């Protein structure tokens, strides 16, 4: 191929940055009727924009073939993001951002996307390098999303009580670790863990019983699907009525929520063993329990883990929602609903962040165990295409 291929993303980045230098950076101050700031007033952002133009133009021609080039692009983007934040908060653009500013953000976006793209395509036979690339991609993407959120909230001057900026949430998170810890203990350690274990455990045992008795399989499963369609939101107040205010009622909600996904998946899984494998066991005159442990349970494992993963996200949500219907004055759900009423929306988001962190970690832990326990499953093998 002889003709030069232009890198479209870098081209967009360069053009957007160039336009950003021309268009006004901010809106007009309503009181004085004057522009709040021009590019020339803020050396940092001016330098960043110029860098974007240069880097964009350069890589439009060069292409971003190497991982080193991606590093340069990402570095330019990080510098640009930093300058954008400075301009917002130190030069009073917050709440008055104008066309120029948003064009600059667009330019950064193009850079970040291109950079992440290259890292995502990176292939190395060294596991350590490959793994760090694999982790870097979602993290960089997440950080970019947080940056966008920050810039949009600050740039448009969204009221704090509607949506706080991530920085404010972060500050609140760090300053409230004791409250967050207490809430986490109440909701996660007490309610979620016990509810999850009881729910998944009992469903697993019932699934084996149901599988043994075909009558139950035909009679219970169709109803089970209906119960799983019961909105938890309706079940939660009933559970509070039955099991009291403390964590027990939350655990009960979780048991109800997690029971049927586990039941249905395990029953499906127990039937996943192939006819040929079952025949094989029959030729050995293998008994029910022997076949169960040697063939059917191992074959059911992928399904069981599927349910465990689904349930890991359901459990936390269930506990938090159940706390809306009565609780002692501690817990993540309690805090969320109370602090909204007190206009402490940053605290609400700190709790949400905690929930997301805990939920993701929980899911990740289950996924890790799955990978270890069912490493034989084809889905964990390297894909050819």
């Amino acid at each position, binding site marked *: 191929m002889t003709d030069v291929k232009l890198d479209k993303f870098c081209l967009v980045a360069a053009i957007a940055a160039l336009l950003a230098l021309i268009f006004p950076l901010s809106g007009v101050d309503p009181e004085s009727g004057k522009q709040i700031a021009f590019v020339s007033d803020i050396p940092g952002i001016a330098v960043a924009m110029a860098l974007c133009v240069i880097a964009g133009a350069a890589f439009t021609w060069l292409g971003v073939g190497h991982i080193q080039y991606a590093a340069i692009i990402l570095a330019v983007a990080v510098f640009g993001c930093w300058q954008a934040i400075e301009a917002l908060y130190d030069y009073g653009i917050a709440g008055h951002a104008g066309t120029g500013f948003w064009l600059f953000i667009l330019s950064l976006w193009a850079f970040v996307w291109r950079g992440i793209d290259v890292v995502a395509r990176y292939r190395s036979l060294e596991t350590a390098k490959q793994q760090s690339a694999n982790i870097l991609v979602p993290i960089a993407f997440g950080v970019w999303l947080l940056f966008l959120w920050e810039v949009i909230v600050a740039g448009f001057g969204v*009221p*704090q*009580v*509607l949506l706080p900026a991530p920085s404010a949430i972060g500050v609140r998170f760090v300053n409230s670790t004791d409250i967050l810890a207490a809430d986490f203990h109440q909701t996660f350690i007490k309610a979620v863990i016990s509810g999850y274990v009881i729910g998944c455990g009992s469903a697993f045992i019932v699934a084996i019983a149901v599988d043994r008795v075909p009558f139950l399989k035909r009679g219970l499963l169709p109803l089970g699907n209906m119960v799983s369609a019961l909105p938890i939101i309706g079940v939660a*107040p009933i559970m*509070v*009525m039955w099991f*009291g*205010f403390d964590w027990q009622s939350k655990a009960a909600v979780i048991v109800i929520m997690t029971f049927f996904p586990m039941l249905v998946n395990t029953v499906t899984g127990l039937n996943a063993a192939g006819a040929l494998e079952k025949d094989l066991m029959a030729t050995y005159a293998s008994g029910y329990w022997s076949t169960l442990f040697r063939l059917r349970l191992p074959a059911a494992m992928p399904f069981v883990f599927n349910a465990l993963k689904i349930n890991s996200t359901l459990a936390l949500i269930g506990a938090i929602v159940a*706390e*809306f*219907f*009565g*609780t*002692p*004055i501690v817990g993540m759900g*309690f805090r969320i*609903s*109370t602090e*909204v*009423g*007190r*206009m*402490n*929306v940053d605290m609400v988001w700190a709790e949400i962040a905690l929930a997301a962190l805990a939920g993701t970690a929980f899911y990740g832990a289950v996924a890790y165990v799955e990978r270890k326990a069912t490493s034989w499953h084809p889905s964990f093998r390297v894909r050819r295409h």
Partner: protein
Amino acid sequence: ADEVTLQLKWVTQAQFAGYYVAQDKGFYEEAGLDVTINPGGPDIAPPQVIAGGGADVIVDWMPSALASREKGVALVNIAQPFAKSGMMLTCLKETGVESPDDFPGRTLGVWFFGNEYPFLSWMSKLGIPTDGGEKGVTVLKQGFNVDPLLQKQADCISTMTYNEYWQVIDAGITEDQLNVFKYEDQGVATLEDGLYVLEDNLKDEAFVEKMGRFVAASMKGWQWAKENPEDAAMIVLDNDATGAQTEKHQIRMMQEIAKLLDDDGKLDEAAYQRTVDSLLSGGSDPVITKKPEGAWTHAVTDKASM
């Protein structure tokens, strides 16, 4: 006609009868207003709604409104249709709670979501910690209903004279089996359902004038409701989209509400002062940290009475 959106604090019930009557009887229309009434709910924070531009005027309790003001939502009280507080703590006699001195060691049901401020002020005035320790009280976040009392999960629960109290009675418990502690009687009453708008809007003369008409028409509605409690309750029922409210309950609520109403809706400065003092006196953890400035105005009610 001028458009006005009113955000209520709670679901459609006789607690807000005045507004529904004014709407239904055409008082707003007469005043050249086109009013939209948005019911609230357990998790709707009216200050958040008004801050987001979802309403022009909201019904809120003063503790919550002043706390929001400190958080940057500059609410200003423009009228106070409720002169008295309807809040109380209701205890089962059999648990042996005879006076506030018996509170330590007890479990009390409290509403949160911005409604906990009166209770917290009261407790700090009594010097009782709310951390669940030996000398303090254990606080439960009370749900939507009175079950905690009926099922003895709490020794006392929060009730309103016009609402939850009667649910307790309806559940088969007689008045003489209950001990009630009204916030009014304990001298810790704070102002309840008032009308609040954003401070910035009041700079606009036309807005003040519009609110004047709104408050005047609303008070006319309240007056009518007070005089015709049964009909007012029916109007409320007509507006209840859930179709779940009962006639008996709403009529009784309207009768109780009537006892709390003010005549002209003009904020009583003394009552305001008493509320602010109570909120400031919270010891180490007061509801508001400094005396609010400009948190109320008579400009609107003055216009209204013209």
